[in-house]
């Protein structure tokens, strides 16, 4: 036992051991400080997105400073290290062009804030809820529960649609009615359907747009406004209710059809049912 204590005392007497111990203390101090800063920021009144960015930046800075300090205490020659770091930086810089681009794009995204965590967005045909905004990428949870990671550079370049940015949305339903129908009555029915559905906003009022005389139907766009949380419920209910209302009023939603025209004064085309031809064999 006494031999072990003597050995430890001897080890401690070495300058190298004291330097390493000091370096270890500095590293531990760095981690504690980083954690304290994280906790302090959690109670601040910052937005979650900004808090995340600031927290990561401060953690990186604190750990970098304490790391360099610890290396210095451990006896590493910083001049040599920094000299080497210059070469390494050039090499890494070439290799990490994409990463740096993503990083800078991330800073731009966080500054511009076209969306926030929890928003539903669409990027390049991918729709989903934003669950993480990092310096390098944005992670989406698609509505079928898949994780999609989109690099920030792509986020910045692509056309981005924030689906939930505004409190209300408009749902457009295209509908065609037969040419024989009374169009004023059709309009009335559509307005009644909107009036009977409490999810439809009263203001902005429902909108009925005439789209044109189509091949098979008179085409309309029936647009109703809804609060964003009720969008899917309205989308399902309004189509069913409109179909039921049209059915009840005898309004036809026609299938595509063709009228064969043989002249203005012709009688209808004669149709004759022939017997089945005999088998030539």
């Amino acid at each position, binding site marked *: 036992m006494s031999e072990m204590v003597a050995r430890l005392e001897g080890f401690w007497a070495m300058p190298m051991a004291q330097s390493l111990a000091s370096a270890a203390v500095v590293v531990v101090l760095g981690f504690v400080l980083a954690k304290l800063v994280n906790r302090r920021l959690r109670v601040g009144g910052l937005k979650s997105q900004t808090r995340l960015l600031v927290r990561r930046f401060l953690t990186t800075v604190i750990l970098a400073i304490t790391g360099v300090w610890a290396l210095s205490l451990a006896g590493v020659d910083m001049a040599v290290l920094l000299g080497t770091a210059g070469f390494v930086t050039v090499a890494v810089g070439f290799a990490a062009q994409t990463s740096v681009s993503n990083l800078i794009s991330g800073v731009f995204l966080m500054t511009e804030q076209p969306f926030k965590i929890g928003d539903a967005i669409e990027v390049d045909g991918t729709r989903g809820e934003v669950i993480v905004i990092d310096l390098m990428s944005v992670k989406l949870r698609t509505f079928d529960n898949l994780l999609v990671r989109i690099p920030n550079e792509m986020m910045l370049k692509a056309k981005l649609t924030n689906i939930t940015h*505004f*409190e*209300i949305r*408009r749902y457009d339903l295209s509908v065609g009615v037969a040419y024989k129908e009374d169009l004023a009555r059709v309009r009335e029915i559509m307005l009644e359907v909107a009036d009977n559905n*409490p*999810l*439809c*906003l*009263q*203001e*902005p*009022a429902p*909108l009925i747009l005439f789209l044109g005389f189509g091949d098979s139907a008179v085409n309309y766009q029936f*647009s109703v*406004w*809804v*609060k964003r949380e*009720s969008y899917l419920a309205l989308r399902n209910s309004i189509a069913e209710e409109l179909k039921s209302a049209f059915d009840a009023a005898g309004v036809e939603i026609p299938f595509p059809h063709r009228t064969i025209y043989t002249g203005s004064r012709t009688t209808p085309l004669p149709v004759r049912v022939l017997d089945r031809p005999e088998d030539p064999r």
Partner: protein
Amino acid sequence: MEKGNSDSEWWGPALVPFGQCGRWQVGPLHLCIRRLDGEWRLSKRSTGELHSTAVHREVPSVYEPDQAEGAVSRFGVSGASERIELVPALADRHVVSTPKLPFYIPANESVTIFVGHPLWLQLLAGDDRLLLSDFAIQQPHDTWFGPDTQTGKLCYASRSFCQLSLGEVDDRPLRATTAVLIKNRASSELYLERIKLPVPYLSLFADPASGGLWTEDVVLERLDDEDLAPLQVRSGPPALLPRARKTAEPRNASQANVMVRAFGSLFSSRAQFE
């Protein structure tokens, strides 16, 4: 059969013995509330008759399974209290009302209008009045109140019109009425197409004679040709019904010197495309 506090009052406490139920009808809404071991069971359905004024209360009532019972909600509770209470309440969002025909209020003129609001119903169970459910008697339409589709506030739309005459006030049981004094202090006339009232800040009062529900009187003062108006809620029962009794507190604590965007114009179709 137990009656409410007065013949016209459909709300208030009631005792529903275990295994039995209580039945209420308030306009188009039919409620059946059953007391079972460890739970309250609420079934509600709407007849869709928006103009129904029928009010009925039957407590206790023998429970008989009914196919047209409607949506059923269950609430697990401890204790053996048979007390259930129905409390009318105002909406949890601001309410927008429109006059049947918009009208002008000339500069430096004051008028009182009567505005109807949809009613909510709160279900409180037990002696400690545990809130079980809070729902609209007739779900009102959502509506948007603001100058465009980006800026504004999501509100409820009232199905009753705001009236200039007390005689035209809608006294259906699923409505509450507010007398709003509008003082147009601006140098221009006010074209009133719709008005928004912050009903979560208002209390409910019951008229002992008719059972009709009212809120405190409200004063809105329009200054400097702006839509923003200082809101003043006059504490106490409405001036027209000094003997009215308070039946529900406001949902939100009232704030002094609130400025509300109370007056607004309707959206034009064009605005939806710009």
